């Protein structure tokens, strides 16, 4: 257990902060602590979590991407046009087109970073502007409301009316989100590719000397984020029942903050899917709680910003300041090892 805590201090701290926040909110409002509200939070967070686990892969491999949210907008638009061209389409075609376009946009970023040796933040700020500029230029900012029925109809895998009259629903975005999380977790922790991505982000020179294919690392990480951006974009279109070109503009910073909050390190080598999910949920829970408390929506951003700041301070502060007992054990253990070594 302590070993688990040592390796995942950020996740544990975040989890603790979240519990405190939840307890406080359930006292502040009577609606917060209900199962249906919990499912609401999940439904609302699904798209951001899909984005976040994609971004996580890029962060772990030592890169960063600012363009994925507008890339998702491009995906939405292209997919909507393509399925109209195909005469209606269906979910399978929708996923294939969205995924493929997303991967394509991700690979553009990878090529800029790997082939042209542009540092990822500059490369993706550029593609952020290019993607968004092209989208606004060709769409003239016009939204698409005329989407096929299969795309806009809510898909509910499980539903149940609670005794208080509220509904508990497990919807498609949540199921897709769970699949994305499991797939990302599996890739990152069980496959050789995932471990190489961690190693590459941790110590690029060390990875190179081991003969790891550095080009592949770039294409896989940005390609994976592209795929997640495509799927997330499709889910957002499904959820919103419309395609608005600037709907996701600005989402990249929210997702980035939540991912870093969840323990991913800017600079690479560190981060986990569970931390990522907790990071996004933390922000969603805050917004949900503020909503239920009747706080003015104009104050949301401010309060969410403050919560992120507090959570990140707590999780980056040395754990011995927060948990004296564990830390003591850790130090003693370290010294014992030193003695062993001598």
């Amino acid at each position, binding site marked *: 257990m302590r070993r688990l805590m040592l390796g995942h201090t950020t996740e544990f701290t975040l989890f603790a902060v979240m519990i405190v926040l939840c307890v406080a909110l359930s006292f502040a409002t009577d609606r917060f602590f209900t199962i249906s509200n919990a499912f609401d939070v999940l439904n609302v967070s699904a798209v951001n979590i899909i984005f976040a686990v994609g971004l996580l892969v890029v962060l772990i491999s030592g890169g960063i991407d600012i363009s994925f949210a507008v890339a998702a907008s491009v995906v939405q638009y292209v997919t909507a046009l393509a399925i109209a061209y195909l005469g209606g389409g269906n979910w399978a075609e929708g996923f294939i087109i969205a995924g493929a376009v997303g991967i394509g946009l991700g690979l553009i970023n990878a090529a800029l970073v790997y082939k042209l040796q542009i540092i990822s933040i500059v490369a993706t700020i550029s593609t952020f502007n290019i993607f968004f500029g092209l989208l606004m230029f060709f769409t003239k900012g016009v939204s698409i409301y005329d989407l096929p029925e299969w795309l806009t109809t809510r898909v509910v895998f499980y539903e149940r009316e609670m005794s208080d009259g509220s509904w508990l629903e497990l919807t498609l975005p949540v199921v897709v989100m769970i699949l994305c999380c499991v797939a990302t977790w599996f890739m990152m922790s069980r*496959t050789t590719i995932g*471990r190489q991505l*961690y190693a590459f982000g941790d*110590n690029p020179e060390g990875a190179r000397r081991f*003969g790891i294919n550095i080009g592949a690392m770039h294409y896989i990480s940005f390609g994976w984020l592209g795929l997640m951006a495509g799927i997330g974009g499709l889910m957002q279109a499904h959820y919103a029942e419309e395609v608005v070109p600037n709907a996701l503009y600005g989402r990249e910073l929210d997702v980035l903050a939540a991912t870093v909050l969840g323990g991913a390190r800017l600079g690479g080598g560190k981060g986990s899917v569970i931390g990522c999910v907790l990071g996004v949920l933390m922000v969603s829970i805050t917004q949900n709680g503020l909503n239920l408390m009747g706080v003015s929506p104009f104050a949301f951003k401010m309060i969410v910003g403050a919560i992120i700041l507090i959570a990140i301070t707590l999780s980056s502060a040395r754990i011995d300041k927060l948990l004296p007992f564990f830390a003591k054990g850790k130090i003693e253990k370290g010294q014992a090892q030193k003695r*062993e070594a001598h």
Partner: protein
Amino acid sequence: MMSAEPLLSLKNIKITFGGVRALKGVSFEVNPGEVHCLAGENGCGKSTLIKIITGVYKPEDGAEFSFDGQPITAMTPSMAQSLGIQVIWQDLALFGEMTVAENIGFQYAVSGKYGLVDKRAMEKAAEKALARLGVSLDLHLPLKELPIAQRQIVAIARALVGEARLVFMDEPTASLTQSETDYLIEIVRNLSASGVAVVFVSHRLAEVLEISDRMTVLRDGALVGVFPVEGMTQSRVTELMTGRNFDSAVIAADHDDQPVVLSVKNLSRANEFDNISFDLRRGETLGVTGLLGAGRTELALTLFGMRRPHSGEIVLDGETVHFGSNREAIRAGVAYLSEDRLSLGLNQPQSIADNLVMASLDRILSSGLISPPKKENVVAHWISALGVKIGKPEDPIRTLSGGNQQRVAIAKWLAIGPKILILDAPTVGVDVGARAGIFEIVRKLAAEGLSIILISDEPPEVYFNADRIIHMAEGRIKATYDPRQMSLTDLEGKVYA
């Protein structure tokens, strides 16, 4: 152990870089299971030779290369790997966030069935490699939790997973303390006993002499010779490596007639150091030695204002000072040359000139802006005063050798006109020849009236260069010695006791 047939044999190795002949027909042999030292100053061609052996560089025509009796015409890095030739680089090339098992068995994350990592096989291989070294480590601990000496072990164990037959260790002890080095030496012995040949590349002569069977000495890309280590002395090796002779003599002198510049009274900081008191006089060099963790660097950082003492007094020129930050300490005339030159002391990509004036920018201002002529003067003055060998002051500092970088780092602090200069491990990563040059500077500065605190975990350094020696252990002053009244062996015995 010695078989008639050498494991590795190289003859007539020549290589030229940009018109400069880096290796001038060198030959090199390693026997199976021996510990062989490859010695020479920086730039003598040691690393180039290793890179030729591992297939990174191609030697010029006429070279003869054989491994295990088989002639090799064109070595490649992957061929070197499959033959069992492994290099443990100075920077270790490990992954800090990953576990010990994964670092050792990373091979399993590079090639796995169906692209999956076989964690069990990885852990088994890691365990086996550690057992072969006679070490037990917690396989699931993240690497960053381990002290540097144990990371070194992890790097060696990793080489064993690759079925090593010949292991090169490039400066493996550069960042280790004496006791950690002793530990490593034992590991290398175990390795050699299990039939793996080890080539040890190191600047630290004491350990080279302790561990090796034979040594090959290179100087300026040419072979000086192959020598049995038995009967070899440090000064003889230094002479072979540099072609010069360095006399060592105690220089300690009394400074009782000089005014006290710094007086430290009962200085304490919880868990770091306790009840430290000493006086430092004008022109005096005070040596501080002891094992890592003795609180030396912590004490230095406190004198430099980067940490605050919990109790006690620092009296500078008769006035009690309470530094709020190191800026205040610098202004009061305290300079601190940090122990980690590469990452803390110098800004590697920046120019020599910019590094040199980094601490003294306020002295080269002209109506609030940096004055290029003033800067040029300062740079030119110190470069000639300390004899730094450079191309142009605009060159990045990383183009300089370790010894010259250290001179620039010292010049950076001299440019503020300090009263006290604290040198923390000033010779780490510096060649034998260049070390002598640095200590020459230290002596000259002391003779000019600068008070110096010289921190080193190598007793000979303080023994030959300080007027008085403070021996710290576990945060306390254990004893104060006068080098004139003891032998070096006495001092070493006390420090390593």
